């Protein structure tokens, strides 16, 4: 790509150092209009748009280099396998994992959490053991543990959230005990934007003898991740939020942990040998990749990670922090608008309600101005209840968003006020 990229510090004028217009040209969909208005896409927290590089990489697979992986001796299978495994190495580098064997491709981040709950959870936990989650988890990091609870009788403990939307660390420390076996926690809240001090969460969990699973779905697009320095045991993210395709998810797991776990799903590709008397399994990661994987999607993910790292994760984080500050300032100035989630450490997610209008009405009205935001409970009902709202409107920013788009949002919200009087 041709984007001019230079390092910059948070709070500086992002549009000069970080050539957002050049980056925008890499995203074909950003040239689209909706209702005759330029698309203002502020819903990257739900799913991000895709750059040309990702679209091209996937088209190349289908047009030039496609076959099943890990199976054939023929040219196409061999080269597709190499591309698929190269994508795994790209994820390894993106997360700074120690080995490519620690990267499992699943169908989604949700499936990655379910894999750990089912394989690790059912093998190593027993009735009375405890799993700790936070009050601001996405449903995908609540329900798999509830299913585990229903199957083997574990206890689910919930760390409360303070009024500003940050994690109550003191309460967390109080919940940890020798009964704690897993701490499963979000890195960044999808509903509030709060950044959890995840390194400290992991350290404390390890002190208590628990393993940790980090839901990095909102973190992976926004910030550099180093699973070794975090010492995370499991880390999951959703490629479609990191400018890659849907249909593939990533599970990082420490190699010895993964190899201690039984397969979750059985099928082809995950076995060493099969007879009707006994089947032996591959080591990780293939042990957990039963069936034909999402080949093209994994390769598309590799292209997405190349795209982000070429810009630089620090530059992306700084650009988005600039957007967050500007959006917070513009939206706070609107009469009757209340931001939900005001933690000191926040990612570029602004959840809000207005006295004048319900979030769904806000969403419908500003949609006609071409502005796409998420409205509803964001698959995080418990934290909505915590803040006494059934729903919020949420603007979530990506690397391609601009301060002019923040202005468009603020102006459209003034229009909501006008309509609702």
């Amino acid at each position, binding site marked *: 790509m041709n984007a001019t990229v230079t390092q910059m510090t948070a709070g500086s004028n992002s549009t000069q150092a970080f050539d957002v217009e050049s980056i925008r040209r890499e995203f074909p969909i950003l040239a689209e209009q909706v209702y005759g208005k330029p698309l203002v896409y502020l819903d990257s927290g739900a799913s991000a748009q895709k750059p040309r590089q990702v679209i091209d990489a996937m088209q190349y697979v289908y047009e030039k280099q496609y076959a099943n992986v890990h199976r054939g001796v023929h040219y196409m299978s061999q080269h597709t396998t190499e591309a698929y495994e190269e994508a795994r190495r790209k994820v390894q580098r993106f997360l700074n994992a120690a080995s490519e064997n620690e990267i499992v491709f699943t169908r989604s981040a949700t499936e990655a959490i379910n894999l750990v709950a089912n394989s690790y959870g059912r093998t190593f936990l027993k009735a009375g053991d405890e799993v700790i989650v936070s009050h601001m988890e996405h449903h995908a990091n609540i329900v798999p543990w509830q299913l585990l609870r229903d199957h083997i009788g574990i206890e689910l403990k919930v760390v409360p959230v303070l009024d500003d939307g940050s994690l109550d660390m003191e309460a967390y420390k109080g919940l940890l005990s020798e009964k704690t076996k897993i701490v499963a926690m979000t890195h960044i809240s999808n509903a509030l934007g709060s950044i959890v001090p995840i390194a400290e969460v992991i350290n404390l969990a390890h002190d208590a003898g628990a393993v940790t699973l980090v839901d990095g779905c909102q973190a992976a697009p926004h910030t550099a991740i180093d699973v070794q320095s975090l010492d995370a045991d499991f880390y999951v993210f959703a490629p479609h939020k990191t400018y890659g395709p849907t249909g593939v998810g990533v599970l990082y797991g420490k190699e010895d942990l993964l190899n201690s776990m039984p397969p979750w799903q059985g099928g082809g590709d995950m076995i060493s040998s099969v007879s009707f008397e006994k089947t032996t399994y591959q080591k990780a990661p293939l042990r957990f990749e039963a069936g034909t994987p999402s080949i093209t999607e994994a390769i598309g993910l590799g292209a997405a990670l190349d795209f982000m790292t070429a810009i630089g994760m620090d530059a992306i984080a700084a650009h988005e922090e600039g957007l967050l500050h500007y959006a917070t300032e513009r939206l706070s100035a609107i009469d009757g608008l209340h931001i939900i989630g005001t933690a000191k450490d926040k990612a570029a997610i602004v959840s809000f309600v207005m006295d004048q*209008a*319900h*979030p*769904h*009405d806000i969403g*419908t*009205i500003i949609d*006609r101005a071409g502005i796409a935001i998420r*409205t*509803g*409970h964001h698959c995080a*009902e418990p934290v*909505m209840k915590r803040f006494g709202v*059934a*729903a919020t409107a949420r603007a979530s920013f990506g690397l391609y968003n601009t301060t002019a788009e923040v202005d468009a949002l603020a102006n459209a919200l003034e*229009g909501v006020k*006008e*309509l*609702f*009087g």
Partner: protein
Amino acid sequence: MLDELRDLYQEVILDHGKKPRNFRRPESFTKEAVGNNPMCGDALVIYLSLDDAGTITDVAFQGQGCAISVASASMMTEILTGKTKEQAEVLFHVFHQLCTGEEPSDNELGSIDEDALERLQMLSGVREFPMRVKCATLAWHTMDAAVKGENEISTE
């Protein structure tokens, strides 16, 4: 502001959304049902009182939701009071058709009084906003469930 939005958010609808009528839990009622839209968190309880002849003598509701779902519930309480169960079912059917862009039959249209039809048409502006049809119909689905003796519905 765009005309289409004004068609949806008409003054009458905004008024009912802000100041819903019959927003209360009656001391006595014959039927109630809970309606949820799990996609957006809207939740309503509809309370119906029917006399022995099957005439609706009182309709009230409580809950929370967007302007469209609250206005629809509020206007529904006014439309249905004094109607029979059978008339309520016809009104629901016609309203559903209006919201989804179908043509109600002349037979059904002919059986509805003009005032009710005008209100239904006002609410059916939602048909230009397909994602919002469930907001407008939630109260009606819930009323239908109450009449049929089902206590809980979901419009996902």
